[in-house]
């Protein structure tokens, strides 16, 4: 899995540069998130603008990260979803948990 980690408005920005369908990719995705949370990051933005699609296991890992963050009073932002994936996220009612923003600039 290709990704970048940077800072954005005092929050941690994780930019995913690949599709997140396969099991091994999903597992690596989870590891990266776990490391960030263990490292004390409480507000994490995940930028999916380079990702074409995500599989069910990728979504599962996203939810795990969300649960861990809420437990320690953190926040998870999602941005850069294409129309189809956004559609899928709304179908799975994921918007009720994460803040889903159209682009980075809408995050305050």
């Amino acid at each position, binding site marked *: 899995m290709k990704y970048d980690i940077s800072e954005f408005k005092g929050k941690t920005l994780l930019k995913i540069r690949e599709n997140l*369908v*396969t099991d091994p990719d999903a597992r690596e995705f989870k590891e990266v998130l776990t490391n960030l949370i263990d490292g004390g990051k409480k507000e994490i933005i995940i930028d999916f603008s380079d990702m074409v699609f995500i*599989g069910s296991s990728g*979504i*599962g890992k996203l*939810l795990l990260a969300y649960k861990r963050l809420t437990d320690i009073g953190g926040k998870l932002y999602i941005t850069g979803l294409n129309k189809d994936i956004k559609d899928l996220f709304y179908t*799975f009612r994921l918007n009720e948990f994460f803040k889903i923003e159209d682009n980075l600039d809408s995050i305050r």
Partner: protein
Amino acid sequence: MGLGFTLILLPVALAAGFLAGYFIRRNASPTVNGRDQVFQTIHRNIMELYGNVTSLLNVEKIITSFFQSLTRIPFVQDAWLLRYDGTAFVDGLTREPVESPELNEFARNNFFNPDGDDYIEPDRNSVLYRLYERGGKSSEGITVQVFPLVYDFLGTSYLFIVFLTKPNPDSQLSKFLLFLKRQLFLLLYLKELSFKYKASQEFLEGVFHNNPVAICITDYNGEVQRGNKEFYRIFLKSFQNIRNLIDDESFQALADGRTLEKDFHFDQKNLKVRGIPLYEMNGTVKGFLLTVTDDSLQHLLYKRLESSEERYRKLLKELPLGLIIVNQEGIIYFVNDNFMYSLGYSVPEKLQGRSLEEFFDLPTGSFVDIIKQIEKKDYLYFKFQSKNRYGSRIFSVNLRKLYIGSDNLIEAAFQDVTLENALYAQLEEKNKLIEEELSTARAVWEHILSIPPLYSSALRFETFYKASYQLGGDFYDVIQIDDVHVAIVIADASGHGVSASLVASMLKILVEFAPKDPHKISDMVDYINTGLVKILPEDQYITMFYGVIDTTNYTMEYVNCGHPFPLVHDDRTGEVTMLPGMSFPLGTSANFSYEGDLKKVQLPAACKILLYTDGIITFKKNNSLLNTEDLKQYFKTGLQLQTKDMLNDIYTRIIRECNTISDDDISMLLLVLNRNLAYKKFLSIPSNVLEIDYAIMKIKEGIGLIHSLGEEDSWKIYTSLYEALINAVEHGNRFNVQKRVTVIYRIVKNWIVFKVRDEGTGFDVKKVPNPLEEANLLKPSGRGVFMIRKLMNKIKYNKTGNETTMFFRVSGK
């Protein structure tokens, strides 16, 4: 038996009365000739006889006098009475045997005719005449009359036989003989009955008199009426009434109808007395029956026991086995030398009176628990360990209950098993290690046997592998060489166990690295052979069949290196043939080239090929090994089933029908070739997550030949296939690489139909939790099925739930 017989069963008096009437009439007759006088005299004698005998049961006397009278009659030469008990004849009175087999024959013919006449007159050839002559007399002018007396309810019969000098005796004589017959019938009946009664009476008397328990019968006042031998032996007629023996209270209890069981002391004897009341027919007590056993006798027995116990004690002392006797609290009463020394003592007094728990760590914690267990069983086995300061020895202990006097004691035999125990523990540890190693090896082996992905449309396969208890040396593989060529390998390393499986693993590596040019099969085989010759011990070899199928024209080139002949079934003709050709096993000769043994065949357009290792043909049916012909039959029958069930079916049928089954490993590989199926694309992968990506890539390649997919179509197909395949690998086949996931797909215009099937037990799609329900929203898993439904145009499941069919419409986007 005629009516007259039944009448005769009436009391004698009646019969006598009837006869009296008869003679009164005869007396009234004016002409009394000489013979009548004779009859009269005899009659009178008989009647007097009846009057004089004290008992009618004195049958013998009466009958004897009958016969004496009878022979005084003119014309009567002789009269016999024979008794027949169904097997042999005896004299009716003396019971001496009368030996004549012909008489038995005679009895069979004449005794049991239902409409039995009063008497029979046998013809001149009858055995009776010959018997008569045996007495030295001539039967000339003699007539025999036989009067059968049949008591079939008693199982006996009599023959009353009269020899007359006149062929047709007058009616007087006839009537008289009939009279005698009836008298005899009654008398003999009484005799038979009394005989039977006497026998049973004697038996009962025997039981009563010779009983080792003293028995007496009293009247209701307790006066002894009868006692048996033992009773008089004990009491020597010292009392006449049992109230002298038992107390008033007990007597009253008996009189009230209760049973008695009590110990009494009488004349320096300890007596155990049991009693029951005896009743009249009307229910009142008429007397009592008492049994008495003399306990003092048992005291004597105890004394004898004691002396033998002394001998026993001596024996125990020198026993090569630790032996102790403890009481219920575990306090030691007795120890033998062996036990004493094993704890490091030299005098028994130092151990006696101490508790077992001082010396041993008991497995149950305390001795009381052992006592509880021994209450349920008569003996127990335990392991005791002696405490540290007594040497920490381990003993196998056998405990059993001992009855000495009134004390409940326990006897325990100790056997020192410290050494055996240590050795056994080591052995067990080693065995465990070997078991673990073997199971790891077996798991590795199954991985080796898993067949890599296959994506040729015209060829499918099924495998069957049954490992022996040890590791096996079987090996098979189906290798996709390129888009057109598929190679098939099946091999078997000689021997079994670890070495055979190591050799087979080596083969796997060699096959992996061998040059697989589909047009130079012999190169591949030569390469493997050279490799094996280097590593194989001299007496080891490998049999192998290696073939390459060209899926465009269904030709197969192959070499058979000593392997059992594969069988080919032509689906159209139904014929099963062997693939011919045979060469040397691998690893036997270094400089051998297999090129000359190459074969090439044209396979039928639709066929099934069965490859197998010799494990299956080492089975014995009716004591001879299965041969190729047998296997052909099993194969043919199996063909009626679905492809996926065939190999299992062949195996189970062979198992069922063979009487000797070998523990070799058994492998079967079934190839299914069908050109007509080529329009459907086929792909098969082992259940490994890493193979999924490759499989989807191959499928997309296949679709790409017909449709150029847009980005949206492409990721929808990719993601759906991934979700379906990961479900099949994970939930269906549970990552078992022996099990396979197959994908079949078909493109019809702008529709694509995918079928994903696994070898699992399936699932009920209705039972998959809805990820949109409040409770499931946050669950990290369970969205796969739902996702496919969202991305594909339509989705279907088969009944079992191990096959998902997905329909996708290419949008061009």
